[in-house]
């Protein structure tokens, strides 16, 4: 039915050559149409992404402090800002901490997300619905709301966490001041970010799991594969692109995580929770050293790009095949 177009529109040898002018002009209009459609996107990207990015790089090569912010006329000083940043041991401590923070968060999120996704797949209908609703609830909790909730949960005097630990026999946690110590503040931030991010990973991976053909599992079962083998040889290879995507997104989100850290600890106590974005912001906003802050931001982007370059290349290749 669909295959046979009306005979009249089918070009034949006898058809007269089409009049030259109109189709040509219509052709130009038609050819311009997609570019008109993407023009707003391009404009937005140019002014709100590329320009700030360029501005950031520019500032990182200038002397740009409070005076320049007010009066303008920043001077170029070459790589001096980068020299100052890279020779500061504090910067390298922050880099190490950021990598550690990202690896820990992403690792936990993927591990828990995968386990929960597999669990959802095995659960009965009602239980699955209940757990998914719970995950959606967590996911829908706004970052700042979740942050205040965690502050309340871990509040030293009336926090329910200290009370529970005390009840369980860990009496040293009675009135324990979580936010007074670097290590425990760090741990709470990890818990907060993982708590908030697991639902996305779990629900996405579960969505992917439901698309794995049942015959593959059947075949694996007939071959006598155990649970781990089935996952390693069937589930994971099929969902590899999805895992790659979720990993990249979580790495990016954890790496550049700012709001939670800023609200809970502002990078403290004793800088124990200062990651790169927080560090850049502290330098720029609190010390008014916008030039150094920009250098840190540029380095942040470079490190993040470096960490993701393999994933990006793979993704582009895959996209290229699809298009």
């Amino acid at each position, binding site marked *: 039915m669909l295959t046979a177009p009306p005979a009249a529109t089918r070009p034949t040898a006898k058809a007269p050559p089409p009049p030259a002018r109109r189709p040509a002009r219509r052709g130009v209009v038609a050819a311009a149409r997609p570019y008109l459609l993407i023009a*707003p996107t391009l404009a937005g990207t140019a002014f709100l992404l590329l320009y700030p990015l360029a501005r950031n790089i520019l500032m990182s090569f200038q002397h740009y402090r409070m005076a320049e*912010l007010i009066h303008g006329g920043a001077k170029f000083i070459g790589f001096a800002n980068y020299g100052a940043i890279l020779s500061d041991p504090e910067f390298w401590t922050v880099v190490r901490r950021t990598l550690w923070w990202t690896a820990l968060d992403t690792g936990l999120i993927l591990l828990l997300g995968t386990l929960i996704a597999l669990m959802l797949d095995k659960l009965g209908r009602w239980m699955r619905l209940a*757990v998914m609703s719970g995950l959606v609830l967590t996911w829908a*909790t706004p970052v*700042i709301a979740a942050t*205040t909730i965690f502050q309340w949960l871990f509040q030293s005097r009336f926090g329910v966490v200290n009370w529970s630990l005390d009840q369980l026999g860990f009496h040293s946690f009675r009135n324990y001041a979580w936010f007074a110590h670097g290590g425990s503040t760090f741990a709470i931030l990890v818990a907060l970010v993982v708590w908030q991010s697991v639902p996305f990973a779990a629900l996405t991976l579960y969505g992917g799991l439901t698309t794995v053909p049942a015959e593959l599992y059947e075949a694996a079962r007939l071959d006598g594969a155990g649970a781990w083998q089935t996952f390693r040889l069937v589930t994971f290879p099929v969902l590899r692109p999805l895992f790659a995507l979720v990993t990249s997104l979580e790495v990016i989100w954890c790496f550049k995580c700012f709001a939670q850290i800023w609200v809970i600890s502002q990078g403290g106590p004793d800088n124990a929770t200062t990651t790169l*974005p927080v560090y850049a*912001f502290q330098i720029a906003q609190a010390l008014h050293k916008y030039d150094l802050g920009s250098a840190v931001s540029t380095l942040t982007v470079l490190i993040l790009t470096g960490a993701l370059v393999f994933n990006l290349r793979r993704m582009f290749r895959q996209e*290229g095949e699809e298009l």
Partner: protein
Amino acid sequence: MRHPLSRTLRRVPLNTAALAVLAVSVFPVYWMAITAFKPTADIQADTPSFLPLHPTLDHFRTAVHAAGFGTFWRNSLMVTLGAVLMSLLVALLAAFAVGRMRWRGRRAFILMVFIAQMAPWEALLIPMYVIARDTDMLDSLSMLTLVYFMTTLPFTIVTLRGFLAAIPVELEESAQVDGCSRAGAFRRITLPLLAPGLLSTSLFGFITAWNEFAFANTLIIKNQDARTLPVWLSSFANVFGTDWGATMAASSLFMLPVLLVFLVLQNKVTSGMTAGAVKG
């Protein structure tokens, strides 16, 4: 022989794990809500109560009557809706160009959108601040709207493209055969089918913009009347000292709209996200 009881028994560890996950995901939010309804005496009890034994609305009154609450609520709503509508409109055009047309540079454009989706926005706080200052847009809600528009745009394009790909192009073509123009065919046939996609995508934009803290905290400095809810909420502890009841009431009110929309649309959201993720 498979026995129903043994099947139930085998499911015990699985269901226990499920209940544990459920508890961990729900408890913090439950604790927030229940604290908001407890009188201060119950909040500051040595033994916490896990049920609201003496429910009160006092903390909600404190929160709502706090200075500027209505203003900040309106600011957040305006910025969020403005950004979502803008990005939806712009993304729809781009998704149509990408999904329904062939043109040179299409691939490069898609890759650009993907990269933009991963843009480290927090690294742009400083230049954005400087640019806003240079253009007299500091302390203005329109600057925030523009930033949120851009932060949600790439994701919206990717997801809408996924939804659009699921709608057969033949439907549009047959409408064109029946005399519709190309735009008319899109508007009459594809747009209605795209409605769930538009809905779920805009929800993501809504949540992102509603929640955003870093830019709102950086770009709104002097004009306190232009603050948004997240910034206000983050300073709530300072405003109300250790009034945890009021803080939790404010958090509950802040999260309510997101939660309502999310719960109503959750199926569409999950399927939409998977469509976007798998395809894009």
